[in-house]
């Protein structure tokens, strides 16, 4: 089954060159150059397996949505990609993950460099209890950027990229925690973008936001397409359908999370090749 779906989406797209172009709407604007290659990945907590045998390629510049019911290992999968699993006691992963040709499961890997390249946005906005400016500036400084003008430039660009600049330009030194939830989440995205990552992992970035803020963040995610490889966990199927080029459907079988189907978002929703996927995307189960 895995093999079939891979063949399916590989044959469905024509390779073109990858550019940082203006954002085109629609599902056909990114190209299938795999940037993240996952092979036979399994994750366990204290010996209890939560995710088994996941293999998929995530394409550069595309938005890939991970969908499926709660507890089926989507967040665990996401956390392996920037090795945030290292922080969870008792967490163990097996298998191979290649990002731009580097095996990120290697214990000798410089995880700080990896996490700089692979940014992550969390479900609950988590700006630090610092000023708006320092939330972006502090990680930059910690990564060795010292020049005042360069820092200011990056802070402004990151805030402009997320559409927050006009809203906060006159109160950059105000506490970040005084911002609204949606603004906080966009600040977190700006904070990640300022480090110039090439991949962004998003763990249900809109689920803690009100509908309007959620729509703003969703639009922002749309705009990240082509510039960044985005992997997004979402429970909102309509959202997945709107933003994603590719979708991966996870499901629990025998209390272990498995990847059931992976393919172009549209085909996964409109003509799923697996019964479970069909049932889930049409709302019959899950």
């Amino acid at each position: 089954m895995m093999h079939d779906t891979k063949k399916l989406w590989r044959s469905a797209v024509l390779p073109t060159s990858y550019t940082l172009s203006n954002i085109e709407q629609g599902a056909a604007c990114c190209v299938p150059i795999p940037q993240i290659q996952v092979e036979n990945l399994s994750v366990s907590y204290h010996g209890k397996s939560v995710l088994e045998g996941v293999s998929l390629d995530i394409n550069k510049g595309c938005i890939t949505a991970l969908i499926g019911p709660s507890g089926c290992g989507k967040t665990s999968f996401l956390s392996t990609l920037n090795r945030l699993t290292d922080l969870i006691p008792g967490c163990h992963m097996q298998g191979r993950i290649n990002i731009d040709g580097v095996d990120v499961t290697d214990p000798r890997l410089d995880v700080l460099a990896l996490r700089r390249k692979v940014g992550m946005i969390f479900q609950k906005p988590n700006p630090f209890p610092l000023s708006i400016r320092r939330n972006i500036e502090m990680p930059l400084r910690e990564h060795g950027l010292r020049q005042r003008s360069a820092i200011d430039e990056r802070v402004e660009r990151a805030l402009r990229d997320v559409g927050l600049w006009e809203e906060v330009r006159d109160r950059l030194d105000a506490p970040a925690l005084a911002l609204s939830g949606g603004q906080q989440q966009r600040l977190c995205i700006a904070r990640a973008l300022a480090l110039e990552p090439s991949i962004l992992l998003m763990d249900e970035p809109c689920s803690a936001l009100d509908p309007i803020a959620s729509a703003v963040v969703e639009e922002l995610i749309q705009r990240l397409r082509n510039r960044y490889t985005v992997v997004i966990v979402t429970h909102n199927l309509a959202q997945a359908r709107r933003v994603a080029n590719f979708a991966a459907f996870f499901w629990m079988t025998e209390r272990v999370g498995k990847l059931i189907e992976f393919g172009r978002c549209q085909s996964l929703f409109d003509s799923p090749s697996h019964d479970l996927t069909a049932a889930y995307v049409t709302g019959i189960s899950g």
Partner: protein
Amino acid sequence: MLKNSFRLNDLLMTIIVWLSAALVVGAFLWLLSDLTLHGIAKLNWSFLVSAPENAGRDGGIGPILVSTLLILGVALLATIPLGLGTAVYLSEFTSGASARSIRMSLNVLAGVPSIVFGLFGNALFCIWLGLGFSILSGGLTLACMMLPIFIRSTEAGLSAVATEWRHGAAALGLTQAAALWHVLLPAAAPAIIAGLMLSIGRALAETAALIFTSGYVDRMPDSLSDSGRALSVHIYDLSMNVTGGDQSAYGSALVLIILLVVINNVAASLANRFLSQRITSS
């Protein structure tokens, strides 16, 4: 009928809660007003700066205030870095058996009577390390007593910092040191300050441990290796050993209470300023 009995219960509970609160506040107010009534007559500038005369019946508490502050200073200088280090180690770098055993020993230490600390300090600092009866010995002994309180409170503060921030810091590729310095410690600052206040309170109130370590001498200390009498020791001496020393004892006790309030406020405002600077400066 049923409804009425519920209301009666509520009424009863309200009365009990109010009574216990009133009892506690009342006891404290009684103590404070008694101190103020008896001590206020003594309280003037010359009492604060002049040396005690006639075994403390007359004169002031100048040298004693200086000794007290020096002892407290030594204790704080030892407690803060050691305590922060241990708390960070406990909350960030270790878990399981070693953390449990350190925590347990801290709990035991926190419960050890101060007289035992006095004898221990006397044996270790005065005799074994050859510091003699001195402000240094007294301050270091106090530090031993303050450390468990300070560490537990700081560690609790650090552990209570949201995992979102820890994960957020890690996901940005920050080192553990950067996360601690920029995020975790500032976020834990209120708990750290609270621990410091409790420790200072315990230190200023301490008598038994100091009698054996910093001694009784009520002269102005020349250096940290001089013996120096702390306020609490002075109060104890005046009320137990000096007939006719009650007036001075009341005056000294009032000064001690005021000192505690002043130090607490200064520390809190310093911490506040430090914090808001960390949060807003660019």
